[in-house]
């Protein structure tokens, strides 16, 4: 029923028969999802609201573990192990798989301290190293020029778009392998959105990216692969162009032509 392409290139994550049930729910929110995530590419997740995109994304860094009582079944393979294993070191996992949220989340501290935060959590104290890596991260997130004269200022003084790029800088400063984006532009204006999209495309040189978006044009602009989800199932995963031009599944076709959603 589902049409999942076989990715020939190297993959950074393999989701296999993965089901997820929220605490107290009678039916799973994700049903036996199987999905490869190509390395150093952008994979977009699209689908109507409530279909499980966020739920899937938050499984990759085990964010659901913050709230007790949720249930994972199946496997997500990363670096040769199943990260759903209860013995998985979540602190380590989350330094390897970073996340950008729907709204910018600048911490109540200075711009510099925001970007240095993840490195400090890892015990990096050397001032020169911190300064170097903070600058590099801010440059890579295309915000260095705007903030280099006010690194000591409170990060909450930045605009929404700047804050979101700050969050990206903060996430890439710890040099993760994978970055998860959950509708990162839904709270931003069109110009800022463009900036973030450009950044996503640049970043895939170094990290594998999974981006949830409710905006099909955005998926088409930034991603190499697109997965269409519906009611907790992954209906189709394909090369982005193919999925939008010649979808294999009827549901996909109906969704991208706006018959529902």
């Amino acid at each position, binding site marked *: 029923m589902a049409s999942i392409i076989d990715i020939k290139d190297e993959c950074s994550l393999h989701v296999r028969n993965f089901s997820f049930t929220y605490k107290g729910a009678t039916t799973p929110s994700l049903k036996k999802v199987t999905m490869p995530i190509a390395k150093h590419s952008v994979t977009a997740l699209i689908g109507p609201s409530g279909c499980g995109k966020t739920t899937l994304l938050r499984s990759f860094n085990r964010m659901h573990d*913050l709230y007790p009582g949720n249930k994972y079944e199946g496997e997500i393979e990363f670096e040769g192990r199943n990260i759903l294993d209860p013995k998985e070191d979540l602190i*380590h996992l989350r330094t390897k798989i*970073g*996340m950008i*949220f*729907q709204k910018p989340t600048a911490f109540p*501290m200075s711009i510099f301290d925001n970007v240095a*935060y993840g490195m400090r959590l890892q015990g990096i104290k050397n001032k020169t190293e911190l300064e170097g890596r903070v600058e590099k991260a801010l440059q890579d997130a295309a915000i260095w020029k705007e903030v280099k004269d006010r690194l000591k200022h409170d990060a909450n003084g930045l605009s929404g778009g700047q804050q979101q790029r700050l969050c990206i800088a903060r996430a890439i400063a*710890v040099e993760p392998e994978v970055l998860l984006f959950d509708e990162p532009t839904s709270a931003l204006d069109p110009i800022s959105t463009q900036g973030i999209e450009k950044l996503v495309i640049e970043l895939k040189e170094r990290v594998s990216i999974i981006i949830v978006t409710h905006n099909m044009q955005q998926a088409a602009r930034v991603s190499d692969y697109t997965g269409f989800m519906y009611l907790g199932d992954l209906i189709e995963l394909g090369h982005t162009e193919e999925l939008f031009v010649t979808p294999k599944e009827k549901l996909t076709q109906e969704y991208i032509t706006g018959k529902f959603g």
Partner: protein
Amino acid sequence: MIDKIFLNMTRTSALLILFIVAWIFVVLFNHSIEAMQTFGFDFITKDEWAPNLEKFGAYAAIFGSVASTFLAMLLAIPVAIGVAIFLSEIAHDKIKGFFGVSVELLAAIPSVIYGMWGLFFFVPILRDIFGGMGIGLLAAGIVLAIMILPFMAAVTRDAMNTTPDILKESAYALGGTQWDVIKDIIIPYAKAGIIGSLILALGRAIGETMAVTFVMGNVHHTPKTILDPTTSIPVTLANEFTEADSSLYFSSLFGLALTLLVMSFVVIAIAKFYFLRKVRKGQ
């Protein structure tokens, strides 16, 4: 039309508060004039309080108020923040609810009950541990601390609970532990609210009468150790107004009341303008 009535009502209420404050101040001031003229600054720097000799120096009571409040804050702040962290972050939902309601109930206990409980249960324990009478500055500090703790903890917890989940999750997503998130995200985020709760608790402690009148000793001596009995301004006022048999005695008590009012204003003004501004500006 309705809007206008409503606007006027709110404006009148606000003015009424100003008016009452001014009124209280004027009354206290007028009645204290005699004492101020007789003693001048000696009133607040001397601790000889001898009604039969017509000598009134309020230093012991002022010192007792400040010291017992300071002690109470010192004891209560760490515990209150600990309780608040437990209630907002660590406890499971069921425990959260149960303990949360208990803390709120404790905050609603009238202070006289804390005072009685302190005298009959706490003072004997202190007596056993340290010897002496048990009654005194330390007992007052502890009872005050216990009295303000539930309020402080409840308000601090509420402030911590305002931290958006998404902010906490962002820190976890960078590899933060629960403790990292508490100290780096939640406490800084909730700082203004936490300090606000501390200030309100401080205001309550400094003017508290019933909780301490039982356990402080009510003697006009500046304590040499924290175990010595002493007095505080509200305790003196509550105990001695009925005994004030001369107009100078009466005026001195008003002088004490005025001193307390000014102290409370100053403490709250400093706390509000200094700390809160600092926090809001983000240092």
